[in-house]
């Protein structure tokens, strides 16, 4: 692992919860001993979206469009399944403008890791209400109290089909790092809701506020061991995710490795996908195309 020529200056606000996520993600990648060239961070737009630029490991970064990171990430992963693809995005990014992709990605179960920077505000556009902000709340930059109900990201993810669904807290870096490691190791789409204080705009859900409430779940067995358990574990995970208020649970809400990944499903229709990485194929050799279409033409001969 070599250092970058010069690390980018990190321009998040002092005390931003994003720093914790960055550290945990870096540590997880390091501890897993991943081939850094093959790690790709795909992010959306927002404060959170800048994370690939700030990472101090020489992985690759694709800082995409607001709400579209999951689409880009899916393309990267399916074209080259050898890559380790991690998606970072804000709550506005993933659950507001990106909600359609968020839901539909669950249906595919591509082997990627999705990390939600859940700060309940639109940070980079100056603190508007994000989809996870509770109704009636009025963080300091809102002219009036929020009139939308909050999305429950955990429930939404389980319902959408993510096969690993967990929650972390950005200032508990060690715990978060462990969960990120588990998520990366998980085969299938892993979703991580990370509670991320935004000291600049969210003066309600602060570090102090969280630290009075969060606890690590020990009483929930989230793992599906055989298909028959699926619905039960899903509904238990969903039910638990509604616990919010005096106590806020951290940990894994649902995990199921029995569901085939999208890569496996593609291979079931196109067996050659199992041992061919599309991105590694030499489609042109010395100016000559290597794909043969004679069969296709013959099919159409009159």
């Amino acid at each position, binding site marked *: 692992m070599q250092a970058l020529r010069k690390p980018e200056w990190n321009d998040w606000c002092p005390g931003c919860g994003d720093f914790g996520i960055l550290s945990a993600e870096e540590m997880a990648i390091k501890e897993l001993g991943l081939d850094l060239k093959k790690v790709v961070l795909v992010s959306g737009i927002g404060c959170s979206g800048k994370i690939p630029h700030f990472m101090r490991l020489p992985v690759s970064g694709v800082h995409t469009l607001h709400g579209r990171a999951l689409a880009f990430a*899916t393309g990267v992963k399916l074209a*080259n399944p050898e890559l380790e693809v991690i998606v970072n995005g804000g709550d506005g990014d993933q659950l507001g403008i990106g909600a359609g992709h968020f839901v539909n990605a669950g249906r595919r179960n591509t082997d990627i890791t999705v990390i939600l920077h859940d700060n309940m505000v639109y940070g980079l556009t100056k603190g508007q209400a994000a989809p996870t902000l509770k109704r009636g709340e009025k963080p300091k930059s809102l002219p009036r109290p929020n009139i939308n109900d909050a999305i429950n990201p955990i429930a939404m993810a389980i319902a959408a089909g993510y096969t690993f669904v967990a929650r972390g807290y950005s200032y508990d870096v060690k715990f978060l790092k462990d969960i990120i490691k588990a998520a990366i190791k998980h085969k299938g789409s892993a979703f991580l809701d990370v509670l991320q204080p935004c000291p600049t705009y969210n003066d309600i859900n602060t570090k102090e506020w969280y630290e009075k409430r969060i606890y690590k779940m020990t009483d929930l067995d989230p793992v599906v061991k055989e298909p028959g358990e699926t619905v039960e574990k899903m509904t238990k995970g969903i039910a638990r995710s509604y616990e919010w208020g005096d106590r806020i649970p951290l940990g894994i809400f649902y995990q199921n490795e029995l569901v085939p990944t999208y890569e496996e499903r593609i291979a079931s229709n196109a067996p050659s996908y199992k041992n061919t990485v599309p*991105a590694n194929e030499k*489609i042109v050799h010395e100016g000559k195309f290597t794909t043969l279409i004679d069969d296709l*033409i013959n099919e159409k001969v009159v």
Partner: protein
Amino acid sequence: MILTWMIGGAQGSGVDTAANLFGNTLGKAGYYLFGNREYYSNIKGRHSYFNLTISDKPKHSLSEKVDILTTFDAETVFQHFHEVKGHLIYNKGLENTKIDTVQSIEPELVEEISRRLGSYGNTISAAVKFAAEKGVQVIPIDYDQIARDVAFQLKVALSVVERVKNIAAVAASYGLLGLKEEYLMQSISRSFRNELYSKMNTIGAKMAMSYVKPAYDMKELPVDKRVQIDGNTASAMGKIAAGLRFQTYYPITPASDESTYIEAHQEVLTIDPDTGDKKRSPIVVVQTEDELAAVNMAIGAALTGVRAATATSGPGFSLMAEGIGWAGMDEVPVVITYYIRGAPSTGLPTRSGQSDLKFALNVGHGEFPRIVIASGDHVEVFKDAIWAFNLAERYQTPVIHLIEKGLANAYTTVDVKELDYSHIPGDRGKIVEGGENYLRFKLAEDGISPRAFLGRAHMYYTGDEHNEEGHISEASSNRIAMYAKRMKKLETADAEIPETQRVSVFGDSENVILTWGSPKGAVLDAMEMLEKDGIRVQLVQLRMFSPFPTRYVTKLLSGKSKIINIENSYTGQAASVVKEHTGIEATNHVLKWNGRPITRDEVYRSIKLILERNEKKVILDAGA
């Protein structure tokens, strides 16, 4: 020799199969075909029809009037009786059917047809009489009798043989041609694997043929190796040939047939360049949740080095605007096959048009290089699909390939050698491995930075303005240089791509027809017709709109007497693009926006009108 033929019928009633079967038969008999399918945005019940040109020489367009119209329902007669000039085959049992009882005809159209029929009345008989008085041979067929006879012979219920009427209609028209009966019978048995259906249709066909006598004296012709393809397939084949490995789509007419074809041919045969071994390789085809995902997923895939594409049409393309901008900003080679249909909005989703040109040219906020090419016939569609990938990778930029519905759903027969692409080299542009201090966006004289694939080295992409490394940068001097570098690529492309490859010229005359896309075929065919009248015109067909071949077009159009712009749009968009770049204005316009393709007869007539009377603007309306 040229013969035009039409069949119509309700969607879902088997008319597709019937038309294809007829086409195949003629193809086998050695004829060149150009056929188009018109249909409503509907699954079952609305009117659809095939218009087919059959010739001993390649033809690339449709006619306004048909020699033979074969029908078995009432609506087809009502919609098309006035378009027939030779033979009209119809269902005797429907003679008394009144137009206002045919519910699938839209009220506007009922009014119009009634006006057309005028004093003839409002029944099928009236329509037939109208035609007959214009010199058309009208041939009533007792389809019900045929069905009853077939059911009786095969000892099955009448409902089972309902669809024999399609093939009977085909057979009756086939009988007029004078070709060997066995050609048709072979086609029938090839088309219907199910023994009962094969028998039923064979018997029905024979019965129908007994109603008619040969009238056109056609002969079988020797056939080279020829394929029959539609535009969707031509594009798909071209993409596959070029090495496509990733295709995304969201269902939309008329684009999704391309993706469905690729999906069905997802494992392609490849040859290992080192060993010569052949093996199967996968094309990943993803049906996405929407077009936002489709374009961005393809872009993500392209970053890894695969040739990636998506295909859509107007509404979907509108949703791709932002993603295309990201690809432009991040210099991603991605191909967007843009099937143009009747617009704006949902428009006429199953009809054709050319009114999306300027949108394609200007899509996405801000300035970034983009290459826009447009195909004028099936062979061009095929080769442009290959070209598109070469351009995309060479200039590291999105390429938009325009194909109209009028080509996508039209089919034609093409000599296989025309599809030979061995002279087109695969061009992947500047590709490098990357390495330690790789700079994805290194400033370069020609604007093109060496590209490494994601996963081979570490690198950064962002839609924000960025520095050479790919990190966000707002510094003024970096912005100026990086922006110019991107735009420079278009200048490089403009310098490198021969202008003669971007404009096709046919004939020579002081009177120029300017067009692009599918009208090309109609113009070429009309030029032959005009030539017989001693009229010569020149066709200037625009093949690439960005970078625009300004110098060559200026040269071609300067000092011409007439510049006649022919287009399937209301405002004549190509003409205004030409004016924007060259300052030269079209002198006359031939425009059509009813969603139906331009016919060669319309071109022929319009050109005459313009040359004789200097008509400034001719508006076309052919096609039911």
